[in-house]
């Protein structure tokens, strides 16, 4: 059975107990006490064993602790950008990025919202 619905676009985080956290949009975070574009702020970094980005139901990139056992919870990195224009009532996600830090380099993988293209970026980890 697929982990997501056929038209799902977003992040799926897997916890060490097998629980899946699927992205929700226009989300009120009780943890942060405010309205957020997604529920990413509530993902518990200490429990994450894999991050996976889907685009229209298709898995575009998956990073897992199984493949990279040296990743610690502090090394996970995920961020998204969103815009709020004058006419839309809710923010629109432009790009989603997942990655991890290792030996001073941040390995970042992004999926373009419009085309589904995977973009690879290596940066120096701050």
């Amino acid at each position, binding site marked *: 059975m697929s982990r997501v619905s056929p038209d799902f676009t977003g992040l799926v985080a897997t916890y060490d107990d097998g629980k899946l956290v699927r992205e929700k949009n226009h989300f009120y975070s009780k943890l942060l006490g405010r309205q957020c574009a997604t529920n990413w702020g509530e993902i518990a970094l200490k429990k994450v064993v894999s991050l996976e980005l889907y685009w229209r139901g298709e898995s575009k990139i998956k990073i897992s602790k199984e493949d990279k056992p040296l990743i610690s919870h502090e090394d996970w990195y995920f961020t998204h950008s969103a815009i709020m224009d004058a006419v839309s009532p809710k923010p629109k996600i432009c790009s989603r990025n997942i990655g991890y830090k290792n030996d001073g380099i941040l390995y970042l993988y992004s999926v373009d919202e419009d085309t589904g293209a995977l973009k*690879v*970026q290596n940066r*120096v980890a701050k």
Partner: protein
Amino acid sequence: MQNKIKILLVSDTTHFALTDVYYGYTHALKALGIPFKAYPFHHFKDILNRDICYQMMHSEAVRKDLGFTHVMFIGGLNIPGFVFKSLYDVKSVVVATEDPHTFDPLKDKLDDIDYYFSNEKSIATSDQFDNTYYCPTAADTFTCGSLPRNNLDDKYHSDVLFLGAMYPNREKMLSGILSAVKKYGWNFKIMGHPGFMKEENPLWEYVPEENFDVNGNIVTVPHEETVKYYNGAKVVLNFFRDTEWNPRTNDMANPYNSDKFEAQSLNPRAYEVPLCGSLQMLEDTRKEARQVFNEDEVAFFSDSETLASQLEYYLEGDGVDKVKDMTMKALLKVSEGHTYLHRMKSILKVIEKDLK
């Protein structure tokens, strides 16, 4: 005592060759926050006499007020000996990318070069030299890993692509797959420098018009375009360079590798294609091919028969379903260990030692 590095980064003199390497290191130095100044020799020489370009570069390198600690030459093949001999306190770093094929001119200057980073393992690890280091070629995430593949123009799409110089070994290999190309009607493209082929060669049929200028002369495909063709191809063929044949002499005697160093290492294409997300068919005639990649990441071949059968398998057979997984694994391998950012970090580890 100097303790802060500052680099003058000098491109190779030729336009087509090594600009990808030069820009790769430019991006890496920027990302790492290393103070540097770029000296794009290949542009300067279009407007100035070549000797003036060398003098300008040398003057800049040794100016005390600019404070360069190192001059890093990409390629470095055409740099005159006086430059290496008279850099005074400034250290010379050569990042060679054409070894072992054209090693001799730089081998003669090794005594005057402080650090020689060779793309060829057999040279870098040779007991003959004490200032050579291994620095394989790589790929640049700023160019290869950032294109929206689905948005490319039609001309960039193909089923099978070869983009490179047409050495005799490559010509023979490509001729061997023509019957399969015709049988399945694959969109087959040969690009780059096919000029070494004879006029009557049937492979000319597969060289597209964008490889020629309006006068019918072959034009160099710039790296920005090369990357688009890689992105648009289902399969990119990667043959290694003929170790014997040399385009300058056009015969089967390469005069620039007199010590006959074995070619073991990979070319930049081996890293660029995976980062573009396309399936690479890699000739496994070099030791490093299977040391760096495995069969879960790329498809190997050793002659035209195995190449044809691999193409059939991955374009028409059961292999079609494996391609997505393979290309993803290869992409991750390259992005995590074989980019210019990784190479620059390795170079810095060596050259920073002397500053401490």
